[in-house]
């Protein structure tokens, strides 16, 4: 008799036990796949967030990544426009690119001197049109709706600040920032007058008159020679940033404004050239090509390339953490399946001892007995895995259509809670294969025991 047909009939012989075993496998598969889909969604959301903000790759001056944050003016790329032109026109890189744009990172002190408050900030100078294009990157089809930057169409002196910055600088009221203490109360608790030297520097800046309800800040930054440079800027919006640390320090501005703060009247530079690719998987090819360009066309400039994982170590940590949890869960569920199927097969061997003796007496080899039980376990495994994947897809569909939202790490706004199972072919096949293989392995010992039975003992079994 064809072994598969016989094995299938034997499984149907004790339907309740087979269904219970399958149920354990289905629950295992659903747990693995739904968690896997959830963690996959988190890591892809994180990746998308980082790629939208900082691109896939950044060309920086050598050692800027390690030392430049303390003195960005000294680690600028002097001929950044040439770098952009070379990259944008390169026949290998050009088809991969969605954006190539310069950026400046700077540190300074932002003050609302009218209110007598200030704090250290991290400024980012960007080309707004390029950044808006980068915000549209959504390679994984995530349910995101990112609006254009608040700097779009704004004046040259416009800035966007984090909600935390707005609170400290007492700009909540004009910017409509929630959860702020009343101005008077805050002043009474912590109001401190600006230092006299800062007040003097601010007075030197040609400062447009503030209109009623307008929010303005002054930013003090050290220029390339170490001398202080001050700009009076108009805050167009306060936006919540994904991380509290960033929210309390972020100031976004036009690239030209940031360049004026860092380089004054000298030739403007950029601290990085940001490259956003159409697909993350293109990073190795793009890096390889950039290495060739840096060694040839751009040889004159001391540059290096960093990818988004190096620039954002949290991403790698999060991916690693979820992979570890996923692996841990998979091992646990694999163990449960191992013992469940093993127990089922052991019971089947005990119940069919006389039958095993009969088959052996009729001339079925030991290997045939072993194969019979292994095939039964394999069928259990395959049916359980396929049913598990189907059930996981149903659960994922229900979750995805339940209207649940959450705020992923590193993001400011809630997004729909998504469990990403459909389309994750490798994960589905991998999990199903794992369960099927575990089921077969679990049958090995009972099958071996069945095959090694003495025929006369098996026939005597009642």
């Amino acid at each position, binding site marked *: *008799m064809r072994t598969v047909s*016989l094995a299938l*009939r*034997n499984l*149907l*012989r004790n339907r309740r036990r087979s269904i219970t075993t399958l149920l354990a496998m289905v629950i295992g598969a659903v747990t693995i796949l739904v968690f896997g889909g959830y963690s996959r969604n988190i890591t892809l959301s994180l990746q998308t967030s980082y790629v939208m903000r900082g691109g896939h790759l950044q060309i920086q001056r050598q050692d800027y990544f390690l030392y430049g944050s303390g003195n960005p003016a000294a680690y600028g790329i002097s001929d950044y426009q040439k770098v952009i032109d070379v990259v944008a026109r390169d026949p290998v890189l050009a088809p991969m690119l969605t954006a190539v744009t310069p950026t400046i990172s700077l540190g300074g002190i932002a003050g609302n001197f009218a209110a007598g408050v200030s704090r250290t900030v991290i400024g980012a100078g960007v080309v707004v049109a390029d950044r808006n294009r980068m915000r549209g990157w959504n390679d994984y089809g995530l349910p995101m709706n990112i609006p254009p930057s608040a700097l779009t169409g704004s004046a040259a002196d416009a800035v966007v600040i984090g909600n935390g910055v707005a609170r400290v600088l007492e700009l909540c009221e004009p910017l409509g920032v929630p959860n702020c203490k009343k101005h008077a109360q805050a002043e009474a608790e912590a109001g401190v007058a600006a230092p006299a030297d800062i007040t003097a520097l601010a007075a030197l800046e040609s400062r447009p008159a503030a209109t009623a309800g307008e929010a303005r800040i002054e930013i003090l930054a050290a220029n390339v020679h170490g001398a202080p440079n001050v700009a009076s800027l108009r805050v167009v919006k306060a936006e919540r940033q994904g991380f509290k640390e960033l929210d309390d320090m972020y100031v976004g501005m036009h690239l030209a404004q940031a360049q004026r703060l860092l380089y004054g009247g000298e030739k403007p530079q950029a601290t990085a050239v940001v490259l956003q690719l159409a697909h993350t998987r293109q990073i190795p090819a793009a890096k390889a090509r950039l290495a060739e360009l840096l060694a040839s066309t751009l040889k004159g400039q001391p540059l290096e390339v960093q990818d988004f994982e190096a620039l954002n170590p949290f991403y790698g940590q999060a991916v690693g953490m979820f992979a570890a949890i996923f692996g841990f869960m998979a091992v646990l569920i694999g163990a449960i399946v191992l013992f469940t199927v093993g127990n089922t097969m052991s019971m089947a061997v005990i119940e069919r001892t*006389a*039958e095993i*003796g*009969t*088959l*052996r*007496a*009729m*001339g*079925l*080899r*030991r*290997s045939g007995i072993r194969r019979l039980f292994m095939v039964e376990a394999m069928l259990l495994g395959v049916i359980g895995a396929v049913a598990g994947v189907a059930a996981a897809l149903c659960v994922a569909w229900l979750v995805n259509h339940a209207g649940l939202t959450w705020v992923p790490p590193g993001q400011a706004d809630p997004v729909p809670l998504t469990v990403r199972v459909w389309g994750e072919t490798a994960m589905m096949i991998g999990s199903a294969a794992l369960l099927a293989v575990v089921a077969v392995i679990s049958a090995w010992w009972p099958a071996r025991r069945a095959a090694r039975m*003495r*025929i*006369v003992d098996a*026939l005597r079994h009642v």
Partner: protein
Amino acid sequence: MNVVTLKHIGKTYHLDAVDVPALIDIDLEIRPNCFTVISGPSGSGKTTLLNLIGCIDQPDSGEVIVAGEAVQTLSDDALSDFRARHIGFIFQNFNLLPVLTVRENVEYPLLLARVPAAERKARVAALIEAVGLSDKAGNFPGELSGGQRQRVAIARALAPSPNLVLADEPTANLDSHTGAAIIALMREMQREHHVTFVFSSHDPKVLAEADDAVMIRDGRIENIERREQRGEEAT
């Protein structure tokens, strides 16, 4: 040539610290195309002897030759193949595979013997008809009476055209009327298929049908009675 030759066979069971001799210095020759009955009281060693003849157990001493083959020299796989080709079994509890139909049960040993499909189909149909179960060919064993199940077991045992069919108390679980019918069927099939039947029984009706009757007691052969010696004509 004899279908089975046993030379100086000894077999002892070890039960905890006690050795129980089951067979002691057995010499036996089973003639071809005979209806041979091994008879004796309970515990006399009938089943052990049948197991050795059926190559599903090994003696502690002596030599077992079945169909001209010294079976103790065969590996486990070779012995399995040997059984599939040369030996059919009929069990007291029928031992049909409950998940297979009558037709599939009879076909199973032919699959083990790798008989081609067309021949398999023809042989299965003929055997099922011969045991009078053509109308039950698609039924499962659970849907049959005890007598019908034993008929299926007889058809299954004969399917691979073996040299030897062994039956361990085949009528023990049947009422006397059905038992007699089964014995008659086995006798008929033995004659028709020219195959040697060896079975254990202490049913006088079975003994009366035997060509050769081997009487065994306390693990020793007490007597072998041939039909010729009883003054009847051998078949």
